[in-house]
């Protein structure tokens, strides 16, 4: 599939401060998570992609078109800004219909779209309340609603789960996952790894303005050869399995877990381990209940890549 977003050696400087450094990436339809700590350059990248900032060097394109002052692009782009800012004197309904009328939609169409968007984020019953009276979670959901109310093909969501309670997060995560099914392109940023992990496996790791890695979380993990992979198993005879595994040169450490049936294995060659394991299970007649890879999550990859 053709990339919706392309950047090529994109750099942004704020005076002497580096915002982005030679960022080259492609974002294709589906959900892509832009992950990095605060100040990593996520918002700078998103502001360039939404035409708020100009690149200092390099280029950024959406559907092959330049972004800065290309207002027609925004018929197909939805943007959820990072800041908790609104026209506070309006109600949720006035805010949403007002912004929809800027597209332009007729009053009737704007009303219909606003109603659908508010229903999607479960704010319909609060639509006539002033925004200044909304809770943080409601405000966050309203920001998401304004980003998707015009049914854009590309959604750029800057920290969309920020400030939401667990239930609110679940709602938005479900909503964003549904967008993937509609063949939309979603680029979302977060500094909270489990949030991104809950949404997608396609990630871009950004730190100090540079892309550290991008791709599927498993592929990323495999790039890190010298970093041990941790695999947890639950089986009926963990001690016997441990004794067998320690003979292998690619097994760095075997540790009996907290539970009587659990075992934690550290290996520097995950592929060899996973090809060996079925043989051992067959030869030893083991009953394996569970294989998990607790290390195989975004936090581990991110911590490793940024040198923690």
């Amino acid at each position, binding site marked *: 599939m053709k990339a919706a977003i392309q950047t090529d050696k994109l750099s942004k400087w704020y005076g002497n401060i580096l915002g982005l450094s030679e960022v080259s990436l492609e974002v294709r339809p589906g959900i892509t998570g832009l992950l990095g700590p605060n100040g990593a350059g996520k918002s700078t990248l998103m502001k360039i992609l*939404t035409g708020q900032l100009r690149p200092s060097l390099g280029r950024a394109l959406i559907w092959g078109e330049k972004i800065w*002052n290309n*207002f027609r692009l925004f018929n197909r782009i939805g943007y959820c800004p990072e800041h908790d800012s609104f026209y506070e*004197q309006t109600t949720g309904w006035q805010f949403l219909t*007002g*912004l929809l*009328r*800027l597209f*332009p939609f007729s009053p009737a169409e704007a009303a219909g779209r606003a109603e659908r968007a508010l229903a999607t984020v479960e704010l319909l019953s609060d639509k006539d309340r002033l925004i200044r009276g909304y809770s943080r979670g409601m405000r966050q959901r309203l920001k998401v609603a304004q980003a998707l109310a015009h049914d854009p093909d590309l959604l750029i969501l800057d920290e969309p789960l920020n400030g939401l309670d667990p239930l609110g997060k679940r709602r938005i995560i479900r909503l964003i996952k549904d967008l993937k099914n509609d063949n939309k392109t979603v680029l979302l940023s977060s500094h909270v790894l489990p949030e991104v992990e809950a949404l997608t496996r396609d990630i871009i790791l950004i730190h100090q303005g540079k892309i550290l890695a991008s791709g599927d979380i498993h592929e990323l993990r495999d790039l890190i050869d010298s970093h041990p992979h941790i695999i947890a198993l639950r089986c009926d005879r963990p001690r016997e399995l441990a004794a067998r595994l320690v003979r292998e040169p690619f097994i760095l450490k075997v540790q009996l877990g907290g539970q009587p049936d659990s075992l934690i294995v550290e290996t520097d060659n995950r592929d060899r381990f996973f090809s060996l394991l079925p043989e051992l299970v067959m030869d030893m007649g083991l009953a394996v209940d569970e294989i998990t890879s607790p290390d195989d999550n975004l936090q581990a990859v991110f911590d490793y890549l940024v040198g923690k």
Partner: protein
Amino acid sequence: MSAAGRVYTFFFQLGQKSKRTKFFFILSLLPVLLAAFLRLQQALTLSRRNITGLFFYSNVVLPFYVQFLLLMLALFYGTSIVLEEVEGRTLPYLAARPLPRTSIILGKYGSSAALALAMIDVGLAASFLVLNAEQLGDLSLDLVLLRDMAVLDLGLLCYLALFAFLGALLKRAVLFGLLFCFGWENVLIYFPGLTQKLAIAHYLKSLIPQPPSSGFAFLRFNLEPSPPLTAVLVLLGLTAVFLGAACLTFSLKEYLFEN
């Protein structure tokens, strides 16, 4: 509807609800209260001085609008066209809509102008009517009111465009604006010769006849007026230049939010 028209509609509705509009609306009615107080005093024959309605209008009401309210309205509405979006961090909602940047400036300028003009015109007309209630059939008096309203409107459009430009260009536009209003404009007007032509106020005051000399006249200055047509053309020209500069600045400048 054009993009600027859509922006105008949105922000005109927003502007009606703003605290700023409520404050300035009340302020714009202050001369009406003063006028009503004067009339009440005269009716109760408490006043020893025989002040005519037209005299009070020319020496108190009109200077209040020309030298104070007009500038304040233009300053706060004009600079806020861009600054309120930046300081309130709502600019991304506009930047991520299919709107040319110039249309954002023009639409917001239009909505600010509509609100400010309404305040000026309503306040001025109400004051005039209260002060000259017995002479409403006098066509020459009605023409005075219409002329003054037109001059104030022209001045407001010009100052508003200037401050829209300053707001698009500078973070501390209000401070610079205050210095301009109460420094540059109020000082330069007293300079003789060509120097006073560097103030916008010069062209405004060229269109308003000087009030009769009096002990408490606020609007006495050594005006060497420009011809009326020249004054109108200069004000219109400045409005177009400042508005164009505001649009250009907003189209080219990146706005960063302070963390």
